C-alpha cells in the first residue's frame, strides 16, 4: 500500500481538507485546509491555542480527526499512529525532547528505530547523516553532557534516519542561540534542496519571513489565511495571527542610576553541584536595583537553573550573606521567608515546578501565595477561604487574558502560553518588590510574549526590581536595562543596555573573559 502511493508522482505532497477536531465544547481545529508542496518550507503560524499542535498531532497520527480528509501524494490516507506516519514518510521533531540523559546519542537513536540494527551501524549512519546535513554530533557522547542545541541535533538526525519526505518541526529555534539557529537554517535549506518538504511551526516571525516559502495562519482553530511570508512584514503577519494589532513593547530608560535602592544583592554566590548533571555556581555577584530590569543571558545548561534555585531559596546557601533581599541576609532562609520580604519567583518549568499539573488554577494560586496572602486566604486554624482564592484566581485570569475551556480547570489543561500568563499574573497580582523570572516566554506565542514582557517592564517602572533569566537574546535586548551573561556557573558583570551588543553578549555566552572583547575592540579600532 505504501509503495503504491510512493510511485505516483504528485505535485502536492500533503493535502488536508476540512480537518476538524473537537474537545468537549471546544473546536480545536475547525475545517482546516492545508496543502504542502514537494520541496517547500511551509510555515504554520498561530497564537497559543490556535490549534497548531492539534493539527500537527493529527498529521502525525497522535490524534484522530473527527472529520475531514488527509491526502498523501493524492491518495486519501488514515494516519492512525505515529508509527504509520513514519512509514508514510512523515517525521517529526518535537519541541520537548524525549532523550535519556544517561545514554549516548547513538543509543538514544537506536531506541526509536523499530529494527534491531547493531549500535555500531547506527553510529555509522548517524555520522554520515550528521556530515551530510551539517549537524556536527559525536554519536558516542552522553546526552547528559550535551547542550540543548546538540540534543536537538540528535532529534533531527533521529528523524532523518527514517528518511522522511515531510519533516514537521515544532518551535525548533526556541532553545537555540543565534549562531545555532543559523546552522539549523542551513540544514533546512539543504533538505529543501533535496526535495524534502518541511512544515515549520514557529512564532518568530523574522525567521519565518527569512526561510519559508508559504505560510498558513491559524486563529481560534480556523485558517485565517495563506500567504507568502516574504511579501509580508513581521507586523502584518502578527496582525493575521492575533487578529488585532500586536502590542509593541515600550521601554524607557530608568531614572536615577546607581542612587536607587538595591533590592537584590548577590555576593560571591557559590554552590556545589547538586547532582551528576548539574553545574556548580562559582562566585556570582550581582545587584538589582529598584526600577530596573536586569537580564541574564546564557546558553542553556550553564547554571541558570541552579542560580534560580539558589536565589529563590529552594536551595539554601552556605553563608547567609550570599543573598540579600531589601537589605536582609536571606542566604539561610527558605523561599517562604524570601517571599515575605516581597520577592516573587517564576521558575522555568511550568508543569511540575511552577504549578501542580493535576490541581486547579485556584489551588495553584494558593501554591505560591498561601504565606504572603495568609490574612486574605486563610481563616482561623488554617482553613482555606476557597471563595477568596477563587476570586483572586479570576482576577489574575482577567488581568492576563488567560484563555481556558472551563471555569477553574486543572493547570495541565491549559496551553503552555496561557498557563505561563497565569503563573506570571499570579505573582504580579501581589505587586512584588522583587520579581525573578526564569525563561518568561519559553514556547509562548507573539501576542502572549509581548504581554508578558510589557508587564515585566511596567512592574520595574512602577518601582520594583526585576531579574529575567532567558536564553532568548531578542527578548533580553527588548526589555533589559543591563545584561549579564552566565557561562559555566560564572556570571559576567552586567553590561548597560547602551553598551551591550549581540556581538559582545554572544562572545560572553561562548565563554570569553569579561574585558576580553574590550581588548579585541580596542585592537580593531
Amino acid at each position: 500500500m505504501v509503495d503504491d502511493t510512493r510511485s505516483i508522482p504528485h505535485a502536492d505532497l500533503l493535502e488536508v481538507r476540512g480537518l476538524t477536531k473537537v474537545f468537549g465544547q471546544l473546536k480545536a481545529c475547525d475545517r482546516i485546509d492545508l496543502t504542502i508542496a514537494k520541496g517547500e518550507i511551509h510555515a504554520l503560524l498561530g497564537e497559543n491555542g490556535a490549534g497548531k499542535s492539534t493539527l500537527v498531532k493529527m498529521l502525525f497520527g497522535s490524534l484522530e480527526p473527527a472529520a475531514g480528509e488527509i491526502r498523501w501524494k493524492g491518495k486519501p490516507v488514515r494516519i492512525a499512529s505515529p508509527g504509520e506516519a513514519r512509514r508514510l514518510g512523515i517525521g517529526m521533531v518535537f519541541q520537548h525532547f524525549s532523550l535519556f540523559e544517561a545514554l549516548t546519542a547513538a543509543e538514544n537513536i537506536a531506541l526509536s528505530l523499530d529494527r534491531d540494527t547493531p549500535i555500531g551501524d547506527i553510529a555509522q549512519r548517524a555520522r554520515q547523516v550528521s556530515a551530510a546535513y551539517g549537524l556536527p554530533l559525536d554519536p558516542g557522547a552522553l546526552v547528559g553532557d550535551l547542550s540543548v542545541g546538540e540534543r536537538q541535533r540528535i532529534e533531527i538526525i533521529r528523524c532523518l534516519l527514517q528518511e522522511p519526505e515531510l519533516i514537521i518541526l515544532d518551535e525548533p529555534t526556541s532553545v537555540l542561540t543565534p549562531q545555532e539557529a543559523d546552522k539549523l537554517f542551513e540544514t533546512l535549506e539543504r533538505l529543501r534542496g533535496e526535495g524534502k518538504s518541511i512544515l515549520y511551526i514557529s512564532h518568530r516571525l523574522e525567521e519565518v519571513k527569512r526561510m519559508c516559502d508559504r505560510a498558513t495562519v491559524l486563529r481560534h482553530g480556523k485558517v485565517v489565511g495563506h500567504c507568502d511570508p516574504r511579501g509580508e512584514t513581521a507586523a502584518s503577519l502578527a496582525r493575521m495571527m492575533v487578529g488585532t494589532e500586536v502590542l509593541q513593547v515600550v521601554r524607557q530608560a530608568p531614572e536615577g542610576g546607581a542612587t536607587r535602592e538595591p533590592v537584590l544583592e548577590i555576593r560571591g554566590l557559590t554552590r556545589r553541584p547538586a547532582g551528576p548533571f548539574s553545574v556548580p555556581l562559582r562566585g556570582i555577584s550581582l545587584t538589582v536595583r529598584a526600577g530596573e530590569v536586569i537580564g541574564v543571558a546564557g546558553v542553556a545548561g550553564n547554571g541558570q537553573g541552579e542560580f534560580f534555585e539558589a536565589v529563590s531559596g529552594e536551595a539554601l546557601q552556605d553563608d547567609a550573606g550570599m543573598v540579600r533581599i531589601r537589605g536582609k541576609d536571606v542566604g539561610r532562609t527558605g523561599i517562604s521567608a524570601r517571599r515575605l520580604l516581597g520577592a516573587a519567583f517564576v521558575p522555568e518549568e511550568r508543569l511540575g515546578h511552577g504549578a501542580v499539573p493535576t490541581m486547579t488554577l485556584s489551588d495553584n494560586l494558593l501554591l505560591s501565595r498561601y504565606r504572603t496572602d495568609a490574612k486574605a486566604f486563610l481563616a482561623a486554624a488554617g482553613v482555606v477561604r476557597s471563595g477568596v482564592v477563587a476570586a483572586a484566581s479570576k482576577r489574575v485570569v482577567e488581568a492576563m487574558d488567560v484563555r481556558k475551556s472551563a471555569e477553574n480547570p486543572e493547570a495541565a489543561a491549559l496551553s503552555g502560553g496561557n498557563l505561563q500568563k497565569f503563573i506570571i499574573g499570579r505573582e504580579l497580582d501581589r505587586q512584588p518588590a522583587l520579581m525573578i523570572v526564569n525563561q518568561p516566554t519559553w514556547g509562548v506565542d507573539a501576542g502572549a510574549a509581548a504581554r508578558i514582557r510589557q508587564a515585566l517592564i511596567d512592574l520595574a517602572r512602577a518601582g520594583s526590581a526585576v531579574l529575567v533569566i532567558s536564553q532568548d537574546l531578542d527578548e533580553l535586548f527588548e526589555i533589559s536595562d543591563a545584561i549579564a551573561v552566565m557561562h559555566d556557573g560564572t556570571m559576567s558583570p552586567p553590561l548597560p543596555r547602551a553598551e551591550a551588543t549581540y556581538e559582545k553578549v554572544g562572545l560572553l555566552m561562548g565563554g570569553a573573559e569579561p574585558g576580553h572583547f574590550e581588548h579585541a575592540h580596542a585592537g580593531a579600532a
Partner: protein
Amino acid sequence: MRLELVKRPQRSMLFSALSPFIAFVLTAAAGAIMFALLGYNPVKALGTYISPLTEVWQLHELAIKAAPLILIAVGLSVCYRANIWNIGAEGQFIIGGVVGSIVPVLYPTYESWLLLPLMMVMGMIGGAAYASIPPLLKVRFNTNEILTSLMLVYIAENVLDWLVRGPWRDPNGYNFPQTAQFNDYAILPAIASSSGRAHIGFIFALVAAVLMWFLMKRMLKGFEVRVMGASPRAGRFAGFSHGKMVFFAFMVSGALTGLAGISEVSGTINQLQPVISPGYGFTAIIVAFLGRLNPLGIVAAGLVLALTYLGGEAVQTALGLSDKVARVFQGMLLFFVLGCDTLIHYRIRLIGAKAEPAAAQPAARLEEAH
C-alpha cells in the same frame, strides 16, 4: 505478542464512581466460582457469607471489626495521598495497644474516670512514636520507608509476645500468656449494650473520618499533603518541606492507628494477648484504596471489609470451610479494585508479534514519541 497499557485521554467520571461497585460484583462472581470449584452451592455459600448483615448482634460485630479498619485507613490515606508508603500500621496498632495498656496493667487498682482518656492518649502517643522511626531513618539515612515500616511490624509483634509471656503476665492466670483482665474503668463503654457489644471505638472512627475529610478538603495542611503527593518539586517551590511532610504523615497515621489499637484492647479484648489483631493493619491498606483515599469513602469501605471477616467466620462455622476464605476475599477485592482503577486510566492494547496492526486502530493513544 504482548500487552501494553495505553493512557486514556480522559477518564470517565461515571466509571470512576462505579469502580468500587464493579469490583464488588467481580469479587462476588469470583467467590461464587471458587465456592463452586470447592464443591459447594455457590448461591448458598455466598448467602452464608453475607448472612451477618441480617442480625442485629452481628451488626454490632460488624461495627467492632470496622472501627479499627476505618481508623487505621483514615490515617493511611494521609500517607498515601502524600505519596508516602506506610505499610507498618499493624506494628503501630500493636504498640498503641501496648502503650495504652501500661497504666491498667501496671496499676490494676487505679480506678478513675480519667483512666480511659489517659489510655487513649497514651495509645496515640505510642502509635505515633513508633511510626516516627521510619521517617527518622528515611530523612537521616535515606532508607526506604516501605521496608523499614514493614520490618517494624515483626519487632512490635515480638515485643507484645515477650511482654505477655514475661513481665506483664497475669500472676493469677494459670500461666496463660496474657495480662490480667482490665478493671471496669479501663474498658470502653458499649454504644447500646442491650443489643450487642459494639463499643464507642466505632464513634471514634466516624469522628476521625469526618475531621480528616475536613482537613484534607478545606485546610492548608490538607492542601500541603495533596501538593507534596502530586508534585514534590512544586511543593518545594511552595515552601513545603518534604522531610517534615514524611514525619507529619507517618505520625498522624501512627496516632490514629495507635488509637485503634488501644480501643480494640480496651473495648473488645479487655486484656493483652499474644495476638491482638487479625491483620487489621494490612487489611486497612485495602480499605484505604477501596475508599479511594477519601475519608468518607473509607467508612463505607471499612464496613465492607469488616464483612469479609465476619463472612469468613460464618462460612467456617456453617459450612466448615477454612477461615482463610476471608483472606481470599480480601485479596480478590483489592485485586479487582486496583484492576478497575487501572482500566479507568488506561486501556489494554494487544501488540502483535509483527509490526503493529495497520489502519484499524482505535482513536485514543499515547504519543509514541513521548
